[in-house]
C-alpha cells in the first residue's frame, strides 16, 4: 500500500521531530505542516517513522 494522503491533527507542539526524521515531507514553523506536491511513496518508511515517533501522535496518513 502506498501513502496517498497525510495530514496533521490539532495538538502539534512544534517539537520538530517529524521534520528531523523526514524533512522532504514535513516542515515545522509554528506547527508542523505537510509539504504538498511530494511523492509520498518515496518516503514511506520515514513518514511512518515520523508518525510513530510523534510525541503527541497528531500525524495521520491513509494508505
Amino acid at each position, binding site marked *: 500500500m502506498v501513502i496517498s494522503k497525510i495530514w496533521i491533527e490539532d495538538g502539534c*507542539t*512544534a*517539537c*520538530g*521531530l517529524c521534520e*528531523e*526524521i523526514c524533512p522532504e515531507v514535513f516542515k515545522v514553523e509554528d506547527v508542523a505542516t505537510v509539504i504538498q506536491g511530494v511523492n509520498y511513496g518515496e518516503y514511506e518508511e520515514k513518514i511512518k*517513522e515520523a508518525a*510513530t*515517533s510523534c*510525541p*503527541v501522535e497528531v500525524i495521520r496518513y491513509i494508505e
Partner: protein
Amino acid sequence: MNKLKTTYMGIEMNNPIIIGASNLVTNTDTLKKAEEFGAGAIVYKSLFEEQIQLESFQLDEKMTEFNDLYAEMVQIHPNIEHAGPDEHLLNIRKAKESLTIPLIASLNAVNDDTWLKYARLISQTGVDGIELNFYQIPLDFDKSAKEIEDRQINILKEIRQNISIPVSVKLSPDYSNILNFIKKLDETGADAFVLFNSFFQPDIDIINEKHIRTSHFSNIGDYKKSLRHAGLLFENIKADICSSLGIFSGEDVVKLILSGASCVQVVSTIYKNGLPQIYNIKRELEEWMDIKNYKSIDDFRGKLSRNRLSGDPFVYKRAQYVDLLLNSDAVFKVEGTSRISSPED
C-alpha cells in the same frame, strides 16, 4: 527576591529547570524561546562520536560500532551535511552568545582520544559547563564491570586535569553498584551527576517478525529511580545531583528536590507539551513553595533524603514489593474478605 534561584556545579541559575540535551534546543530561535519561557539553563544537543568520525572520513565499517542507540539521537547515522564537529562547536558558541541563561555542552564520545580532544574544544566555546555521557551497552561477555568503570574514571580524570569549566557526568542506572561508582567519580572531581540517561530499547513486530523502532520518550512516573538515587546520594557526595528521566510536572520537581536534587532536566514533557511547559512547571513549583511557606530551594532540598529521614529509615533501602508482601493482609483487605490478591498471585 527570586526564591527559585539555585546553584548547579557552581553555576548560578534562576530556577532548577534545565532543558536536557535533545534536538529540541538546537536553533537559536528555539533556544531564545526556551529562555523566554523561563528555563533555568539549557544543555545543548550532544556532540556524538559518530559526527567526529564522519569528519575524519572513517565512516564505513566504523559506523556499525556505534549502533548502541542513545535516546537523544533521532537517526543512527546523522545527516552528513550538518553533522561535522566544527560546525557543532560553532553552533555551541553562537548559542552561548545568544543566551543570558547558562548553557551546558554535552559530549557523547567513544574513543579515549576523542573524549579529551573534544572536551577541550568545547570548553573553549565559552559554555558554562560540560556534560559527559558515560554509558556502555553490555555486548561484550569478556569485559568486566571493573574494566568499564576504570576506563570511565580515567576519562573523567584526564578531562578534569585538562579543562577548567565545571564537568558533570550523566549516567545510566545499569552499573553493578552505582553508588560505589559515583563515589569514585566524585573523588575524581565530577562537579555533578545527572541521573539518569535513557536509551532506545529494541522491540519486535510479531506480525512481520522484525525489529521495530519504538518511542524513546519517557513516561509520567519514570522519575522514581532518579528519586531513590537522589535520596541515597544527598550529603554523601561533594557533587551536585541533577535528576533526569520522566520528570513532567512541577510536582515531580518538588519530589526530586525533596530527595536531594539541586535541579532537574526535562525533555519528554517539552516534546509532548511544548515549550510553555517550562513556565507551567515553574509556576507549579512556586505555588507549592508558597503553600508550604518555603523561601528558597535550599529550605527543602534533601529534606526527605536518607540522611535526614526521621521516619522510616529503610525507605530508600527496601524494595517496596517485600514491604507489600509482609503487610499484604492490611494492604489488600477489602470489605468482606481478608485478602483478595498480592503481587505474587
